[in-house]
């Protein structure tokens, strides 16, 4: 096993860096620095730039536009994008629904949707969570009744990120209420322009609008939009939830935050000299760097193991999710601590420097240990799948 990049990987990293330097606009970069939110136009534009280069969906099979990279290279690519920072790819499209269609979709669905996903022609959102089904996802209630060539969908989804921009939503719906809860679920692709769909924004405590409620009132969905088999949706969902392997730890994001912390502490006076010169602060910084370095190696180990087992996800990847989210939160809190009294100001006021977003970001990032399988769920996975408890 190699825990350092080899010459080929270093050359690849240089290539990625050079491409980003040449193509990422200052406006996109500033957009990322200022907020944690996706900016619709930037995401689309950047995805198209990458796609043109052949890097839009590098993790997909080559026949559908993939780059044929090793997991390590994919991780280098992701980390460099995060470090830049470049607009994040829309994971619901390229990491979630794309791979599900590739694996389980019909030939017709593949031809219809995949090229448009790769080029960001369609914006996808995810209809999984419901108000009464949080960590217990399988207890979802939104139902789809088969009538002729259509499914009639009724119910409500929540925590739907960026539904306000979405052209399509992929949904888990209950198609058989009479069987065990995991057994009666199907996976539907729904055009957001279909009558009967209402999107209601949910404002988060940082003042942002990222998530939404989506209501379905007798929404007619053509049967051809069913992915795979009816009542097999839970299997596809499990595949999807374990599919976004290379980006669980979000190392580049935390590294970029620590870099900012150094910069900010260097220009923040405390007791008459820069905070960065204080031993106590340097100790906190060093302690976080050690944990992050450890996670970086752990990620390389998980990726190497997956490289050898042809992509079967390692349950150890739950470590990446737990530790990765803890470090994102710890680094965002470190920035708040650096600001000290300046952390009190709300973002929507006159201070447009990125540092004014720090507290809002800390608030918003409480979500990273909640969404996408809470850390409690991850620890239960470790206890059961790895430790056999």
């Amino acid at each position: 096993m190699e825990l350092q990049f080899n010459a080929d990987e270093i050359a690849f990293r240089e290539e990625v860096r050079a491409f980003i330097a040449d193509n990422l606009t200052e406006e996109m970069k500033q957009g990322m620095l200022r907020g944690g939110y996706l900016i619709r136009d930037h995401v689309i534009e950047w995805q198209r730039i990458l796609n043109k280069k052949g890097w839009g969906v590098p993790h997909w099979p080559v026949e559908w536009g993939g780059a044929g990279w090793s997991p390590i290279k994919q991780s280098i690519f992701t980390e460099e994008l995060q470090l830049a920072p470049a607009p994040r790819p829309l994971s619901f499209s390229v990491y979630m629904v794309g791979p599900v269609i590739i694996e389980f979709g019909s030939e017709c669905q593949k031809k219809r949707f995949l090229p448009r996903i790769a080029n960001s022609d369609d914006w996808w959102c995810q209809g999984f969570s419901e108000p009464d089904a949080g960590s217990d996802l399988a207890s979802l209630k939104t139902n789809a009744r088969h009538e002729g060539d259509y499914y009639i969908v009724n119910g409500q989804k929540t925590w739907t990120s960026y539904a306000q921009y979405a052209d399509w939503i992929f949904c888990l719906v209950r198609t058989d209420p009479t069987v065990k809860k995991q057994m009666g679920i199907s996976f539907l692709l729904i055009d957001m322009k279909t009558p009967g769909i209402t999107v209601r924004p949910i404002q988060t405590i940082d003042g942002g609008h990222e998530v939404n409620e989506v209501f379905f009132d007798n929404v007619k969905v053509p049967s051809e939009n069913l992915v795979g088999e009816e009542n097999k949706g839970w299997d596809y969902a499990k595949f999807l939830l374990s599919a976004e392997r290379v980006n669980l730890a979000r190392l580049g994001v935390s590294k970029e935050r620590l870099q900012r912390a150094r910069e900010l502490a260097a220009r923040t006076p405390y007791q008459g000299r820069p905070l960065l010169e204080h031993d106590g602060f340097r100790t906190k910084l060093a302690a976080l760097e050690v944990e992050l370095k450890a996670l970086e190696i752990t990620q390389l180990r998980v990726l190497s193991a997956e490289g050898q087992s042809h992509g079967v996800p390692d349950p150890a990847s739950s470590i990446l999710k737990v530790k990765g989210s803890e470090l994102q939160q710890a680094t965002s809190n470190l920035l708040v601590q650096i600001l000290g009294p300046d952390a009190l100001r709300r973002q929507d006021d006159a201070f447009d420097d990125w540092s004014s977003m720090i507290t809002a970001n800390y608030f918003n990032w409480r979500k990273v240990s909640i969404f996408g399988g809470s850390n409690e769920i991850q620890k239960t996975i470790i206890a059961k799948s790895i430790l056999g408890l």
Partner: protein
Amino acid sequence: MQDSLMRLLQRSYAFDHRWKYEAATPGWSREIWAQFAEIGLLALPFTSENGGLDGTPVDTMIVMEQLGRHITLEPYLSTIVMAGGILRRAASTEQHESISTKVIDGSLIVSLAHTERGTFGSPSRVGTQAVRSGDLWQISGHKSCVLHGDSADLLIISARTSGAPSDAKGITLFAVDPRATNINIQSYALHDGQRASDIQINSVLVPHSALIGCVDDGFRILQSAEYETLAAVCAEAVGVMSELHQMTVDYLKQRKQFGVPIGNFQALQHRAADMYIALEQARSMAMYAAMMSQADDKTAIAQAVSSAKVQIGRSAKLIGEEAVQMFGGIGVTMEFKAGHYFKKLTLLEQFLGHADHHLELLTSGPGLFELE
């Protein structure tokens, strides 16, 4: 009074009321403020000599905890505790008559304008200058994050009248009308919805009678009022934490996942118990700070309030973050209460120095247990 306050807040400070107060100018409720005056809340810490009720720091503690439970928006801390603390320590008889009386009857909002940007950790660093010429003082400088600066009828401004930029000696306090020309107030909201202002003071002239306390003697007064304020902030945080913890426990009982209330899961039970321990430890230290803020020994006061702020900071972070985690998604939504309590705790943690700062202060003192 405690009961009146509790009833008043229960009646008029439900979560949707709070939204309304925050949305309208001045960002809090003048009606509530009038009721505060009516039940004597504004008079509480002032001496009876000056029309007050001779309340002790423990009385203030009890009030602040109540206010914290409803994350109220009114300028009680800034006007009554902080600016009031300056007045109680240094105002002349005439100033008590012209200022304190109106504060007590609710007709005058006073804010302390002391902090400047980039002075964290150096409380005596004052860049604002005041120069005497005859019977007038000319003040120039910039103040930052003045609580409720936009609703203040009077500002108490600290300015350097002698000495080097960080000297403890040489700071003087002035009562200044914020509507003076040459005062520019830029206001904004804090993360908890409270208002604050940055204030630019360009060669403002005030008479000698505007001095609060003696020339060059302001820092002693500021520091002493800051200790009182810190104790009050600790009590407020305890109120916020108590309420948030209770909300969380209620939610654990009611929210079902996998067919049972999530409060049945032992991991969450033990974490809720850890939160409770953190809450009670914080409550103890808030009490300690309140009691000790009457001590004679300045070092003892400083140690007590710093150690209280350390404990409050630690407990607030644990309780705030754990509560949001246990609420899950709704914990981070604007329309739900819990997230606002979490934000308030985050603010209180940073206000007047976070835990690391106060720990740093403690390291330079004697131990907390130097034999009694």
